[in-house]
C-alpha cells in the first residue's frame, strides 16, 4: 500500500490518550475536578500525578477493545462487554501546567490560557451574575471553583466507576488537592433498564452518531478508521471514510501532525508548530496531546417539551406534531434517523442502523446503497431546516460563510459526552422531582478557538450562519444555541418545512434557555510520555 505518511501518519497508539481518538464510549463515566491550592507544594502534586500516570489509558487498548468487540459481534452475534475494565483520562488547566512545568507559557491559545469562564460571554452564556448559566452559578469552572486537574474514569460497570472515583478522590485529598467537583454520568438506559434510551440524550434524541473519521494508520497497512468509500481523483474534494462520514486529518485533533487542509480535502496542511520551531503554538512535549473542552450543560426537558408541543399546535403540523417539530430542531428524529433521508416520518430501523443513519449529504446526491431512502439535494432546507442543530454544526457539503465543504472540516471536533441525571419520561411537560439533568459535554480538538468555540460562537449562536438563505437569516440553533445579542435572549428561527415564513420565537413561552451551562473548563490532555516525563516529573 502506498500512502502519504503526512496525511496518514502512524498513530502513536501507546502515547495518545485513549479517549481522544478512540473514545471511551462507556455507559458510566466519572468526572473528577481537582484544584491545586496555592499553598500546595508542587512536588506533592507531582508525586500524586506520577502514581496516577501509569493508570491513564492509551489509545491502543481502547482501539483493540473496539476491534475485539466488533469481531465478536460479527462472528458470534453478541455484543461483548468487558465489564472489568476501567479506563482513565486526564487533562490539565493552563494555570496548573504553568505551575507543573517550566515552559507552558509556550501555549499561545488565548482561550486555553484564559479558561472557559473567560470565554463564557463569547459563547453566549448569560452574563448577569447570579443568572442560571452565568459562571458565577457554575458548580465547577467559575472564578472560585476552577479546576486544575480533570480526570475521567470510565467503565461498563457503574460500581467500578464509583469505587475508583472514591479511591482517586481520597488519594487526591490526601495529597493536598481540593476536590471541586465529582460526578458520574450514566447512559440513560442505566436508570430504568430501558434499552431504547441507550445512546440517547435527555431530550430523547440518539446522540453521538456523526463523528469525523480520523485519518492515520495503526500499522503499516491498516487505517485507524474503517473505510469503504473511494478516494476522489481530485484532491480538492473531501474524502469520505463511510458514506457521509468525512475523513479528517489527525492533526485536527492531536498536536504534532499534519492538520486538515482547509482548501484540499485529501491533502495535508502544515502541523501547528511546536517549540522550538518559530511561531510555536505549544511546548515540544505537547505532541500527541489534545485540548479538552468540558461543559456541564443543564437541560430543562419540560421547558423544551412544552415549547415544541405548544408551537407545533400553533403551526398545525400534521401527525405527531411535537415530535416532528423537535425533529426539525435537531435534524434527526428521536431514533437518530436523519430528516435528510426520511423527512416525513421517523424510521427507527434507520435510526438504529449505522452507518446508514449518517449516510447523507445536504447539497448533492448520495447513493448509500443500504436499502434505505437516499438523501436528495436540500440546499434550501426544505427537508432538514437550515437551522437544524446537526446542520448548523456540521453543514457537510454545503457552501458556508467560510467557503466550501473543505472549510468545514478543520472545525470538526471529537465529542465524548455522556448524560447526567435521571431522564424524564418521553414528552414530559412537568418535572416534580427537580433533580438536575443534562449532558456532560466533552470534546477534543487541536484548537479550542477553531473547534468548540468556532462552532458555538460563529454558527450555533448566529441567526445567519453557516448558511444564509434569506437576508434576515433563518435563525438560531434552537436546540443548544443562544442569543446573547439581545437583552431578552430571545431566539427565533424559520421552519420552511412547516410553511414559508413561519417564525418560531421563544419569547413568551419560556424566558430562559432550555440548555444552559452549570460548569466546565478548558484543559490540555497530554500524551502519556509528557504526563510521565514532564508534568509529573
Amino acid at each position: 500500500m502506498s500512502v502519504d505518511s503526512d496525511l496518514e501518519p502512524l498513530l502513536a497508539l501507546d502515547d495518545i490518550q485513549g479517549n481522544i481518538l478512540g473514545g471511551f464510549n462507556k455507559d458510566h463515566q466519572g468526572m473528577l475536578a481537582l484544584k491545586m491550592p496555592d499553598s500546595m507544594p508542587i512536588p506533592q502534586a507531582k508525586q500524586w500525578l506520577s502514581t496516577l500516570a501509569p493508570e491513564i489509558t492509551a489509545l491502543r487498548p481502547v482501539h483493540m477493545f473496539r476491534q475485539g468487540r466488533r469481531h465478536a459481534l460479527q462472528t458470534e452475534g453478541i455484543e461483548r462487554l468487558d465489564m472489568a475494565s476501567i479506563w482513565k483520562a486526564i487533562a490539565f488547566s493552563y494555570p496548573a501546567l504553568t505551575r507543573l512545568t517550566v515552559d507552558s507559557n509556550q501555549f499561545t491559545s488565548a482561550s486555553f490560557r484564559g479558561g472557559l469562564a473567560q470565554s463564557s460571554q463569547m459563547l453566549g452564556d448569560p452574563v448577569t451574575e447570579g443568572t442560571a448559566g452565568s459562571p458565577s452559578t457554575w458548580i465547577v469552572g467559575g472564578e472560585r471553583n476552577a479546576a486544575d486537574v480533570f480526570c475521567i474514569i470510565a467503565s461498563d460497570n457503574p460500581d467500578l466507576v464509583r469505587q475508583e472515583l472514591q479511591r482517586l478522590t481520597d488519594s487526591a485529598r490526601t495529597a493536598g488537592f481540593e476536590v471541586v467537583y465529582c460526578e458520574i454520568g450514566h447512559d440513560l438506559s442505566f436508570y430504568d433498564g430501558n434499552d431504547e434510551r441507550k445512546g440517547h440524550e435527555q431530550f430523547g434524541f440518539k446522540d453521538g452518531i456523526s463523528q469525523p473519521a480520523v485519518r492515520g494508520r495503526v500499522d503499516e497497512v491498516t487505517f485507524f478508521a474503517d473505510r469503504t468509500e473511494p478516494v476522489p481523483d481530485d484532491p480538492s474534494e473531501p474524502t469520505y471514510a463511510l458514506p457521509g462520514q468525512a475523513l479528517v486529518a489527525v492533526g485536527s485533533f492531536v498536536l504534532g501532525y499534519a492538520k486538515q487542509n482547509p482548501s484540499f480535502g485529501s491533502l495535508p496542511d502544515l502541523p501547528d508548530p511546536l517549540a522550538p520551531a518559530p511561531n510555536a503554538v505549544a511546548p515540544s512535549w505537547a505532541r500527541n496531546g489534545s485540548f479538552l473542552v468540558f461543559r456541564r450543560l443543564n437541560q430543562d426537558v419540560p421547558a423544551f417539551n412544552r415549547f415544541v408541543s405548544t408551537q407545533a399546535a400553533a403551526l398545525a403540523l400534521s401527525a405527531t406534531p411535537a415530535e416532528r417539530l423537535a425533529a426539525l430542531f435537531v435534524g434527526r428524529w428521536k431514533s437518530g434517523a436523519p430528516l435528510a433521508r426520511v423527512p416525513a416520518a421517523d424510521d427507527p430501523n434507520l435510526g438504529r442502523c449505522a452507518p446508514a443513519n449518517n449516510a447523507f449529504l445536504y447539497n448533492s446526491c448520495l447513493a448509500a446503497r443500504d436499502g434505505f431512502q437516499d438523501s436528495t439535494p436540500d440546499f434550501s432546507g426544505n427537508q432538514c431546516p437550515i437551522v437544524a442543530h446537526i446542520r448548523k454544526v456540521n453543514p457537510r457539503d454545503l457552501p458556508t460563510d467560510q467557503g466550501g465543504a473543505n472549510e468545514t472540516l478543520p472545525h470538526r471536533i471529537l465529542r465524548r459526552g455522556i448524560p447526567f441525571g435521571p431522564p424524564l419520561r418521553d414528552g414530559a411537560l412537568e418535572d416534580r422531582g427537580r433533580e438536575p439533568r443534562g449532558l456532560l459535554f466533552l470534546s477534543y480538538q487541536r484548537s479550542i478557538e477553531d473547534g468548540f468555540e468556532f462552532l458555538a460562537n460563529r454558527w450555533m449562536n448566529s441567526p445567519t450562519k453557516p448558511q444564509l438563505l434569506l437576508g434576515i437569516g433563518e435563525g438560531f440553533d434552537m436546540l443548544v444555541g443562544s442569543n446573547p445579542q439581545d437583552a431578552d435572549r430571545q431566539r427565533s428561527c424559520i421552519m420552511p418545512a412547516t410553511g414559508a415564513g413561519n417564525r418560531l420565537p421563544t419569547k413568551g413561552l419560556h424566558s430562559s434557555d432550555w440548555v444552559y451551562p452549570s460548569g466546565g473548563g478548558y484543559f490540555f490532555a497530554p500524551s502519556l510520555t509528557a504526563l510521565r516525563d514532564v508534568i509529573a516529573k
Partner: protein
Amino acid sequence: MNTFLPPAGLRDFDARPALYQTWHTTMAELFSGVKFTDAGQDIRPAFYSPLTPPSRANPATATPTWNGYPKILTELYPGNVLTGSAGIDEPTTFGTRDGERVTFRPFLDAHGKPLPTQQYRAQDEYLEWAVQRDSGGKALEILLTCEGPEYWSTIASDPNFLQQMYQAIVGIPVPQADLFFNQTCTWVDLNSSDANGNPVNRPFAVGDYNPYNSWNLKFAVHLTHPANQLGAEVNLAAAASLRFTRQKAPVLTNPALTCCQGIGEPNRSSDPNIAAQVNSLAMASNFVTLRNPVGLYLLSIDGSRFQYPDGKPIIDITRYFQPLRQSSDGSMIVRAALRVPAGETYNGRPLLLSQLQLDHQPIQFGGQVAAAITMGLFAQALPGAPAQSATECALKPCPDPNFPSVIIPTDVNTPCRAPHTAALVDALADTAPGARASLTMKGRTRVRIR
C-alpha cells in the same frame, strides 16, 4: 423600480438628481457588458439584469456571507490575527509586495517612472478600513467601508459635489485638487482583461478622479484594493451562473468551482462563497441575478467577542459600533465606525478604543475588527431557466508546495506538485521567527471569461 439604485439605496444624489441617471447607466453597462463565449460561440448563462426579469414571479433571495478578515492571512499567519492584521493596516504602494504577499503593477508617470504616492489597502474581502491613531500610535477610531469605487467615480463627475461628500465624511476641509490627478499616468490593471485576454492598460489624465487620493487612504472613504469593485461582483455572479464541468463531470464545489474558469480569487472567503451560492441556484434551474440596489454590504458585527479593559463583556456593541452610511432600514451598511463616544469613562477613567478588547486582545489593528464582521450581498433567483451547455474547466486547484492550504489555479493538464509537509516543517525549524510568512506565495492567476 426601472433604474439601478445607488448601493444601499443611498440618497446622496437627491442633491444632484442627474447623477441617479449616471449611476443607472454605469450599472446597466456593467450588466450588459457581461458576455460569455466558449470556443468562440456565445453561451447563454442563467444570469439576468434585475431590471429585466425573465418572469413576473417573486424572486427568492440568497445571501452569500463571508468574514471581513482576508482569508489569505489565515493561511499565511494561522491562528495569529494580530500579526496578519499588522501587515495590512497601512496602505501599500502599487508596485511593492503587500501584506498578503501580492504585488500589483506600479502607477507610471509620463516618463515611465513609478509613482510612490499611489497606494491602496491590501484588504481584499470587499471590506477596507483605516485606523485613526493618537500621537502615540494608539487606535482611536476604526473607519470601515465597503463602498465600491465605481460609485465614487460617479460622484466625481461633479467635482464640487465630490469635494462636499469628502468633507462631509472626513469632517475637515478637503482641497479639491487633492482628489484629482495633477499629472498624467498609466496603470496596468491585472484584474481586468481586454478582448484578447490581456491586462487592461488604464491611462489617467490631469483632472481625472484619483481613487487612491490621500484622503481616501487616510479615512477609508471607499474601496481601493484593485479587486474590490462592484464590477467584480457583477462579473463573478454572472460567471457563477454557468454550468461547469471537468471531464464532463459537474463541478459544483469549491475550490474547483472558483478555479475552473478563474471566475474569482479562490484564496478569499468572499469570491468562492458568492460563486458557490449563485451556482447552486443556477444549477437548480433558476435564473439568477444580484438584487437592485446592487452592492457589497457590511451585514453585522459580532458583539459577543468584545470586552472592556478588565475583560468584562461589552453587552451592547452598538454603543461603539456606529453605521455611518446605510439603507433606510439599516439592513445594508456601507460605512461604519468603531469608536468610543467622547467623554466616556470606565471605572472612573477615560476610555480609549485601544483599551477595548476583541477576543481578549486589546484592539490595535483594523484587521482584528474585520475578523468580527460579516459581509454579504444579495442574490436573487427566479425559476424556469433552460438547461445550459457545459463549460469545461480550464484550470484546477493545486496546492502551493510551500503553503499547502494556499490554492494555485493550474492548467487542468498539468499535474499538481504535492506539498511535502514534513520536509517543510523541518525547513521552517531552521529559519527565523515569522519564516512562514516570509516564504513566497506564488503569483495569483486570474482568467476572466469574456
